[in-house]
Each structure stands twice: as structure tokens, then as C-alpha cells.
């Protein structure tokens, strides 16, 4: 008798079917649908296109002329990535604490689904905005590159490094959301982090000449990527020479995704904050050991 027949007959079935869809796919499908149909992704992408239009207008009228196509392309790809990271943080900051706020997380956690797969599904749904944002940037990049090779370069490196940064920022946003009890906390902390990384990356080159400034720029993943772009797109530096500037974003991505999926995700709980803090758990264990 198949599970379906048992179900129709009203018998208990508690074992999962071998042909069932994986949890991460179910969560991804549902969250992506929620995000794009009536959710905040469409609205944020609309805002993004408006910002992109304004930036295009400003760059076009800022005195750059045809010989400056590299500068114009550089400014565009930098803006595309910075705005996309903002969108990524906004969406990811809501991913878990938002469900806590809306009282929908409990029903999800009450199922026998794997916590890690739930987090993976939500993570994948959150990053769906990035391919859309990149595709929307293509016409602008095409116009500014004026048919030169810089279009291919900026699209290639923008795609690769933008993807790495999106993984970093969405991962960070989800970690903040993971440990926040309310959406308000999650948004404030995430935006604080965004500004913390953004401001140093916007400093003029002249200010960042010292060893300490250079090191800080190298440590900051967003600033490091901007520097890499300036080397590759503006200065036409070879890849091997500019490689050092993408070490930090790659390292950040590995560390943050490692923390999110390997350490945090299996302990996803109804309450963020205190209950999820590993050091409190450790303290409890020490206390128990001490008392026994």
C-alpha cells in the first residue's frame, strides 16, 4: 500500500516519502514567490531602476566625454553593486526576524524539516534579486562602454565580484536576522553594517595612501572590490596584479557562509537573541557540570 493509499484510508503515516521534494527547494519556492509576487522584491527593484536612471543621468551630465568611457562604466558598476547590496541586506534582514514578527516561524519550525535546509532555502530565495539587478544594468553599461571591451570586462567582473559580495551581505543580513528577536533590531543593525562598510569605500584615493589606510581598504570587502574595479577597469592593470584585492571578499564569503550554514542554521530557534547565544549555552553546560 502506498503512502497515498494509506492516507486515503485514514491510516497514520509518519515516514517521509522517498520521492518527496527536498525542504530547501520547498522553502526556496515559497519564499521566492512571496518575495516577487506581492512582496518587497519588486518594489525594491523598481527603486533600484530609478536610482540607476538617476546615476546614468548624473554621469552623462557630469562632464565625462567619450574618452572617459572607462570612468563612466566604473561608476555604473560600482553603483549597481552598492545599491544591490543594500537591497540584499533589506531582504535578508527580514528573512527570519520578519517571520518571528509575523508569527509564521513557529509553524515552520514545528515541522520535521531540517533547520539547515530551511535556512538554505531562504538564502537562495533572497539572492534571486541579484541576477535581475545585473541584467537591468546591462543597457546602461552597454551605453557607457560605447562598444569597447570594457563592457565585457565590467560585466564579467561585476558579475563575479558582485555575486561574491551579495553572498557576503545576504549572509551577514541573515545572521543578524537569525539572532534578532524583532525586525526593527535586524534592520537597524544591518543598515549600520552597510554604512560601516560603505563610507570607507567612498573615501577619495588621496586619503587612502598610507599603509593603515590601504590595509583598512583591503580588509573592507566593498572597498577592496571597488579598488579591484579601479585597477582592472580604470587602470587596465593585469588580473594577477589586482588579485590581492579580491582575497578579502572571498575570505569573507567563506567565513560568513560557513558560520551561517554550518554553525548557526542547525540551531535555528523560535526566539532569537538570548536563547540562541552559544556562550549562554556553554555557560549553562558549565553550571550543570559544576552543580553535578
Amino acid at each position, binding site marked *: 500500500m502506498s*503512502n*497515498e493509499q494509506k*492516507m*486515503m*484510508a*485514514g*491510516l*497514520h*503515516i*509518519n*515516514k*517521509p*516519502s522517498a*520521492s*518527496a*521534494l527536498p*525542504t530547501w527547494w*520547498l522553502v526556496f519556492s*515559497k519564499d521566492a*514567490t*512571496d518575495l516577487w*509576487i*506581492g*512582496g518587497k522584491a519588486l518594489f525594491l527593484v523598481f527603486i533600484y531602476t530609478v536610482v540607476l536612471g538617476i546615476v546614468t543621468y548624473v554621469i552623462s551630465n557630469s562632464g565625462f566625454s567619450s574618452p572617459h568611457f572607462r570612468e563612466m562604466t566604473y561608476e555604473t558598476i560600482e553603483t549597481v553593486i552598492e545599491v544591490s547590496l543594500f537591497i540584499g541586506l533589506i531582504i535578508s534582514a527580514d528573512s527570519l526576524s520578519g*517571520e518571528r514578527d*509575523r*508569527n*509564521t516561524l*513557529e*509553524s*515552520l*519550525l*514545528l*515541522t*520535521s*524539516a*531540517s533547520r539547515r535546509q530551511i535556512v538554505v532555502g531562504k538564502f537562495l530565495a533572497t539572492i534571486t534579486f541579484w541576477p535581475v539587478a545585473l541584467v537591468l544594468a546591462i543597457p546602461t553599461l552597454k551605453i557607457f562602454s560605447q562598444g569597447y571591451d570594457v563592457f565585457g570586462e565590467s560585466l564579467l567582473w561585476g558579475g563575479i565580484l558582485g555575486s561574491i559580495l551579495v553572498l557576503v551581505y545576504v549572509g551577514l543580513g541573515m545572521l543578524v536576522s537569525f539572532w534578532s528577536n524583532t525586525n526593527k533590531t535586524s534592520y537597524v543593525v544591518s543598515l549600520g553594517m552597510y554604512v560601516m562598510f560603505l563610507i570607507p569605500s567612498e573615501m577619495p584615493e588621496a586619503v587612502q595612501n598610507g599603509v593603515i589606510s590601504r590595509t583598512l581598504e583591503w580588509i573592507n570587502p566593498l572597498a577592496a572590490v571597488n579598488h579591484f574595479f579601479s585597477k582592472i577597469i580604470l587602470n587596465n592593470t593585469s588580473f594577477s596584479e589586482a588579485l590581492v584585492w579580491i582575497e578579502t571578499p572571498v575570505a569573507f564569503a567563506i567565513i560568513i557562509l560557513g558560520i551561517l550554514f554550518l554553525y548557526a542554521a542547525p540551531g535555528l*530557534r*523560535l*526566539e532569537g537573541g538570548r*536563547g540562541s547565544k552559544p556562550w549562554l549555552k556553554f555557560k*549553562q553546560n558549565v553550571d550543570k557540570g559544576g552543580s553535578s
Partner: protein
Amino acid sequence: MISRGYSKAVNPRPEVLVAEGLQKSYGARLALQGLTFTLKAGHILGFLGPNGAGKTTSIRILTTMIEPESGRFVVDGIGSEHPQQIRRKIGVLPENLGFPGQMTALEYLLYFGQLYGQTAAETTAIAQKLLNDVGLHQRRNSLIGTYGHGMKQRLGIARALINNPVVLFLDEPTLGLDPRGQQDLLELIKYLSRECGMGVVLCSHMISEIESVCDDVVILSAGQMVAKGTVAEVIDRTQQNIVLRNGLKLQVLPASVAKAIQILKATPSVTKVSRIGASEGWLHLELIEPVYEGASMEYKISNSILGALVRAKIPIMNFEVEGGRLQDVFMHLTEEVIT
């Protein structure tokens, strides 16, 4: 509302939920201390307690949402050290359940059924049946955002049943339902328990609800378990302490109140008679405190009082033993711990 499509589940374990010494505190505040009870298959266990008594903490521990500091529990033979396997065996309707407004009821149940590892075809069959059972079949393709509170509550119950649980936890299930909806839901709970063999933990503020459907009851107050047993046992045990002390209420014809007071004052077991209200004929009697000689003592006293009134040809319209209901027991037990 209820279709009779289920067949009775054969559960070889009579005890589907066993909790032993569960304890939990939040900082310095002890939220739950020494919770110990047993729930048998086909039984309904009521959780009673005032606000902050530890009911929600208990439910969250038993549904694996939070870990106890000490103690353990077993669901259908699976120990609390295996929370994921326990979640496969339980169905839960939390007190404040949120719903995605952009999904239809059918999509919602399909999603959760699949999260339990069922295929879409398996889940569709059971989801259709559950929606029919909770009276939402006609609205199965409407967005949940268009549902009223009662409809969402019914959908929450359908979701709790999607994995055909062995133990069902219901936290304030009738909250916000109209009287007909409440009655239908209690009928469904009784049916799931009696006919399908599920163990049900029912958390409610409505004592009448617990009294009418529950086999067993656990009363919590300030994190402590102050009473447990069958509803009758809990009432009986508490009566030994409070009934004889508290007295009786009775109602006679307003015209006979003066005569009734005169007769009652002359009855040896009555120490004080006072009027309740001005014109409806209600009287409150305080009784002597004799040495307890078994359950028959209260009937002897009651009979002697009623007999005196009947002999004097005073019509008795209502008669109520104070402390004889679960509500009185609840008030008495929770008051003691709080004070």
C-alpha cells in the same frame, strides 16, 4: 462539520506522552518546575492555569521549541533528545499563529504536508479531506489574507493534523470562534481523540471547555503543578479541603426568603445565612466544619438543609455546592500559590 472518513489508528503504546520533572527558568524567574504527567492514547489532557502560570512554556518544551533545563519527555516512545523525530509525531496549534496572506488554504496545507516529507499527491488528498473536516472546503482556493479569525483558526487546526500526529497540542484553540464554531471544534477534538486514538493536550482559559471535553487535567500556577489527575479526581481531592468550609448557595422564591432564613438559622449544620442580591431569592450558607468522614459527609449536610426547607414547604429553585466545580478548584488552587 466532521466527516467520518478516518479509520481508527492502532497505537500499541497506551502512553503517548510522558513528561518527567520538566524545569525551565528565564534568568532568575522560574517559569516551570517539576512538570510530570502522562497522557494516554485516546485521552484529552487539559492544561489550566492563570496568565504566567507556565502553560505556554510547557507547550513549547513539549513541542521541542525550547529545551528544558532539566527533566525529559517521551512522545510515542521517542525521547526528547531526538526533537526532529518527535516533530514528526506531533501536531501543534500555537496560540499566536501567523499565516501567509498570499497563499490559498490548499497551497498552505500542501506546503506543510510536503515539509513533512510527503509527496504533493499524498498531501493533496489529505489536505482536501482536512479542509472538508474543518469546514473550509468551499474556500480552499481563497487567499488566506481574506479569511476571518475563526477561519484561520480552523486552518491552523487542519495544518496541525496534516502529518496525522500521534499527539495533538492545541493552545487556546477556540479563541475568537463563535459559539457554533467552538462547539464544532470541541466535537472535532473529541472525535480525534476517541475515534482516531490521538492523545490531545488542550490548553485553555475556558474552564468549562476543559471540564466538558478533558479526561485528565493539569493545573499550573506560578510555574508549579498544583494538581493533576482526572477531572473528577482533582475536584474530589480539592473538595476535601474546601467544600465543607465554603458552604452552599441556594435560591428560593423571593416571597419565602424570610421564612427560609429563619429555618436555616435553626439548622445545626448552618453557622451563617446571608442574602445574595436584593430580590432574586439567593441565599449563601456558611456551614460548620466537621471532621471529614469521606465523600458522603457533604451529601448528609446538604440533605439535612434541603430536608428542613422541604418539610417547611419552601420551594427550592436552585441549589449549588460551592467548590463542586472545576472552576472553584481552579480558583482555590491558583489563589493558594499566588498568595
